[in-house]
């Protein structure tokens, strides 16, 4: 078996008396698309913060392509090739859509002409060309999500973490986002946190379920939906409907 792209070993973090993430052994293969689900407060976003260096683990390790990045700074991890779209869109609100994407593209492309071309390409890809000169702060939530996606893709990461990419989107927008995720997955690995089970059905094959900071179960989407424990703690009414 090939070495995993991302691996965590007994990963944990404690805030005061609260163990937000505990003993997580997680492994993601090159090119894989994995969904994380779990109730609010299960530690999914904290897990993302540990992987991206926004938080330092209290226990355990994060390995990216076999390299221990547990103690690395967030910007170093970003340069190694992990990109993240955060839960609340984290964008440069006072700047135009184009400038947002440019700031990401210029890190890869040292030449301005190449960067400008990459920006135009990305604007078309995420469907924001018409809004390119608008300040991001003026855009609707769904559009800001795409701006952030465009920013993340522009740094050409090998692993992309998406924290609730479909939140606050209309049905049409959710369909487009699912399509975009599948397209990204053609050459990149992804981990997607989402609550929308329909969205997960559209994109995922394997699902990891978090509960109370730990991994509860990991299986195919079909088996997860049949799993009585998962239904009990998380899916509840939603799955029964």
């Amino acid at each position, binding site marked *: 078996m090939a070495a995993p792209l991302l691996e965590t070993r007994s990963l944990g973090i404690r805030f005061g008396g609260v163990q937000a993430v505990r003993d997580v052994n997680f492994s993601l293969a090159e090119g894989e698309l994995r969904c994380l689900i779990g109730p609010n407060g299960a530690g999914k976003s904290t897990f993302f913060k540990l992987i991206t260096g*926004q938080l330092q683990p209290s226990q355990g390790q994060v390995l990216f392509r076999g390299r221990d990045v547990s103690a690395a700074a967030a910007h170093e991890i970003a340069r190694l090739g992990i*990109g993240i779209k955060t839960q609340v869109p*984290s964008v*440069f609100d006072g700047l*135009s859509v184009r*400038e947002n994407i440019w*700031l990401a593209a210029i890190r890869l492309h040292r030449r301005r002409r190449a960067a400008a071309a990459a920006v135009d390409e990305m604007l078309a890809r995420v469907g924001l060309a018409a809004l390119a*000169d608008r300040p991001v702060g003026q855009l609707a939530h769904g559009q800001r999500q795409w701006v952030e996606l465009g920013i993340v893709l522009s740094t050409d990461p090998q692993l992309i973490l998406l924290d609730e990419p479909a939140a606050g989107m209309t049905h049409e927008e959710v369909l487009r986002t699912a399509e975009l995720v599948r397209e990204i997955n053609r050459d990149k690995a992804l981990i997607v946190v989402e609550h929308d089970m329909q969205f997960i059905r559209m994109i995922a094959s394997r699902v990891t379920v978090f509960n109370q900071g730990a991994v509860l179960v990991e299986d195919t989407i079909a088996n997860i939906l049949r799993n009585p424990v998962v239904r009990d703690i998380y899916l509840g009414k939603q799955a029964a409907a």
Partner: protein
Amino acid sequence: MSARAGTLAGLAAVAAFGLAFLLLAPHWVELDTLLDLTVYMIMSILALSLGLVWGYGGILCFGQAAFFGLGAYTYAVAMVNIGESTLPFLLAIALPAGFAALLGYFMFYGRISDVYLGVITLTVTLILFNTVNSTAGPEYHIGSARLGGFNGIPSIPPLNIPGRPEAALDLEGMFYLSTALLLATYFGLRALLASRFGRVVVGVRENERRAELLGYDPRLYKLATFAIGGAIAGLAGCLFANWGAFVSPTIFGLAQSAQIIIWVIVGGRGTLIGPILGSIAMEWLTTTLGANQTTGTGGLADLWSNAPLVLGAILIGFVLLVPRGLVPTLADGAGRLLRRRLPAPAAAPAPEVAE
């Protein structure tokens, strides 16, 4: 007109006005007015330093006066010792820049929050004030330069043409030099802010976490911005020491620090022309109000001659009514008027074109 063409037109206008002012002012005004204009130019350079650090870098530095004062004292001490101004001039820029870098290293790499950053920079300024203030005795000297404590350092030799100590600058020469350096600083900063570095600095101001997650180290960008701001403030300090041939510890005082912030608030953050106009307007107002004599009869005339009161009222008025400052507010108003005249095809305003 595209945003790019607008930016170029703005640059050309500033360049034309600046050059005309540089060349013509000495022929039109009396020498004492020229002396006033010179100090406006020097204070404008100082205003630009905070305009960069706060307006673009998002770092609210309460202690820009520290670097200004260090520049002035460095020039004075080095000049008294050396007697030829090339090295003192360079030192007056390099030393404050180095000090800013050192201070910035501890603040930014120590991940100090914004509020404490303000407190620390202010405290450093006051420490410098108290330290220099208490060096009145003859035992406090650096080389042959006595620090003079609260008396300051008098009769600082003026700048000379590099390599020719006998060719010292006169008052008119100081005007030319200060104005030219103000223009150079302005255009230098415009170029810096248009560069990759400058745009990332603005990105860090907008969203530090996002910049970090894209692979930029915000600490490094803030440190560099802070050090550049220190260098520019030092340059202004050097010119200021020349202008009056005198420097005293009040340069590190609370009033001086507050003043720089007021210029930037009045002129507008996120622009470069704003701090320049803010400093000139406030300096002019301070001089004018200071010249008013109290009549001693009470009433409105006396109120008007109370300069701190009037300045305080203006500051409060700005913070409450024009919180973004003059230039951004006026630019927005002009833009809105233009668009009402010619209904452009759904073109949104170019965001924050740096002036």
